[in-house]
């Protein structure tokens, strides 16, 4: 109807929008590159006791930079220095070398996980045949557009780790494994080729499902019957089964294996809660933004209210899992398990406990009142805090294992976030322009437009 036309108009208006995004992205990319050198230089002055390591720390973290010093890296890695002091410095040096990589990895994973969470949410809407949400489907589809490029970036980072260009994953280092019986026992699962094959399967599967869902959704616009709707229903159900297994394994592979000695059986759920709430928050923020700009006039406060309910609920769910994992390990105090939290509590106290404030107390208090869930700027504000909180969550998941106590949120972290934020918004808004902003042919669309809580 009229909405299709509005979608087209949007396409025109969004063109300058996206160019801006490109500029922003370039700027942030530039930022990153500009500071890579600074960062490396800093490492130089700060701690360089021996000459052995001097040459090879100039490695920036831009993947485009050619990494010629591979051999030197390997040779310096966990070497057998005689002097204890040297060893210590080298340890810190390695952590600092890891830092930009880890910063990049955290940001890449964070934005990737948002689009993955949105895809899961989208599939749930289809599988549950939800009546309230079809007006938001195009926003969700646009966010999932980042799944493939974001996934490829994460995959490239994993491949680079596999090629020993960085030391994010200690178990990838053959020397470490040689001296570590626990990792040796796990090599049947934790070895580079199998690791990459698994990653390819997850990413390929998700991108494949996303592609089909989106294709059917576009075709549904012109369809006269429900064939594509039924197809999407089945696809969504299939995706959810595939997703919950692969998501769990993904979280073991990409995050838990950073600490190869430690394990937690609810880790997959924990990561899932984080990605789910970030995804829903992003949907809410984007919908409100687009509505403010006048593109989604069919989205009413009740839709925002429902999204805010999800933000509220899943935030509590996240905290529940966080606490379940923390309390059992804290209480039983078994050395092999508790080191994980001791490291986080001693080296990252502000972030570790600050996360509880941003991810739990803040959303709970702000979104508890039913009326506040309808106040758009309240939802936006809470949403931004939740997103920051979940970035910190990923940060605290990844950083202790990769950079240890030498962490700080500095230029590489912020510029990595800016880089991916730019890329994310560019791809998402670009994808928004490709299709009308209101799905047609969905049997629930009328119910959704009239949805009133």
């Amino acid at each position: 109807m009229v909405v299709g036309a509005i979608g087209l108009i949007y396409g025109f208006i969004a063109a300058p929008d996206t160019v801006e995004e490109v500029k922003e992205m370039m700027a942030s990319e530039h930022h990153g590159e500009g500071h890579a050198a600074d960062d490396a230089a800093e490492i130089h002055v700060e701690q360089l006791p021996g000459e052995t390591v001097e040459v090879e720390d100039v490695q920036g973290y831009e993947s485009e930079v050619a990494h010629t010093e591979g051999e030197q890296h390997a040779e310096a890695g966990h070497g057998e220095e005689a002097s204890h002091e040297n060893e210590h410095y080298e340890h810190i040096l390695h952590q600092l070398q890891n830092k930009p990589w880890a910063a990049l990895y955290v940001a890449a994973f964070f934005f990737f996980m948002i689009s993955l969470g949105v895809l899961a949410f989208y599939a749930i809407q289809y599988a549950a045949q939800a009546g309230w949400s079809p007006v938001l489907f195009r926003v969700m589809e646009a966010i999932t557009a980042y799944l493939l490029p974001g996934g490829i970036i994460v995959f490239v980072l994993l491949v680079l780790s596999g090629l020993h260009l960085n030391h994010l994953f200690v178990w990838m280092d053959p020397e470490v494994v040689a001296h570590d019986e626990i990792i040796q026992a796990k090599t049947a699962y934790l070895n580079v080729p199998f690791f990459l094959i698994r990653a390819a399967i997850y990413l390929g599967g998700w991108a494949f499902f996303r592609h089909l869902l989106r294709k059917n959704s576009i075709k549904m616009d012109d369809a006269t019957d429900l064939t594509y709707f039924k197809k999407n229903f089945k696809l969504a159900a299939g995706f959810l089964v595939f997703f919950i297994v692969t998501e769990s394994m993904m979280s073991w592979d990409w995050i838990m294996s950073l600490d190869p000695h430690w394990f937690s059986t609810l880790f997959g759920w924990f990561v899932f809660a984080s990605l789910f709430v970030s995804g829903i928050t992003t949907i809410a923020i984007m919908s409100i933004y687009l509505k403010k700009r006048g593109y989604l006039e069919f989205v009413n406060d009740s839709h925002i209210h429902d999204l805010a309910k999800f933000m509220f609920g899943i935030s509590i769910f996240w905290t529940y899992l966080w606490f379940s994992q923390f309390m059992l390990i804290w209480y039983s105090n078994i050395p092999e398990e508790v080191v994980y939290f001791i490291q986080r509590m001693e080296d990252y106290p502000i972030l570790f406990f600050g996360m509880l404030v941003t991810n739990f107390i803040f959303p709970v208090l702000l979104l508890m009142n039913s009326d506040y869930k309808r106040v758009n700027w309240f939802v936006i504000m809470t949403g931004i805090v939740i997103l920051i909180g979940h970035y910190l969550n990923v940060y605290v998941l990844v950083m202790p294992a990769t950079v240890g106590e030498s962490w700080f949120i500095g230029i590489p972290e912020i510029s990595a976030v800016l880089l991916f934020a730019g890329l994310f918004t560019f791809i998402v808004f670009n994808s928004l322009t490709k299709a009308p902003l209101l799905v047609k042919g969905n049997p629930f669309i009328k119910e959704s437009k009239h949805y009133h809580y």
Partner: protein
Amino acid sequence: MASKVLHAIYRDDDLLLQAVKQIREARYHIGEIYCPFPVHGLDKAMGLAPTRLAITSFLYGLVGLSVAIAMMNFIMIEDWPQDIGGKPSFSFFQNMPAFVPIMFELTVFFAAHLMVITFYMRSRLWPFKSAENPDVRTTDDVFLMEVDAANHNIDDLTDFLYKTGASEIKLIE
């Protein structure tokens, strides 16, 4: 009863909701509606004041939380500190994570139970109270609306109610 009321019976919740809007537009006063199940949006259509039950629930939750904290502090820290699993209970703060489940449960317990009790008291319900609904069919499948006749013409009002879709109308003196 001091004033006359009309009992109009409706057989469908959507019809009822529509009728409520029409009747209020025509400036008649609806005294009460008896439903076999909660009708979504009926409270707003009738123009009832929003419930304050949620606020009481929040306050009860805070009470529950405080009770849990005071109770655990007294039992585990002050009265009888024990060494459990190598964690001596001499400080509330250091043992707090172990008390969180109890704090949570008592918060929920207080909020839920006290809220239900408040609801009963507010609605003047108690065990063995005889039912107030004027027609037993409202516990099965019909909706009954009580409209104040006040000083309106009864016949006009009856006609109007039939037009809004009422299936039976009874005048109660």
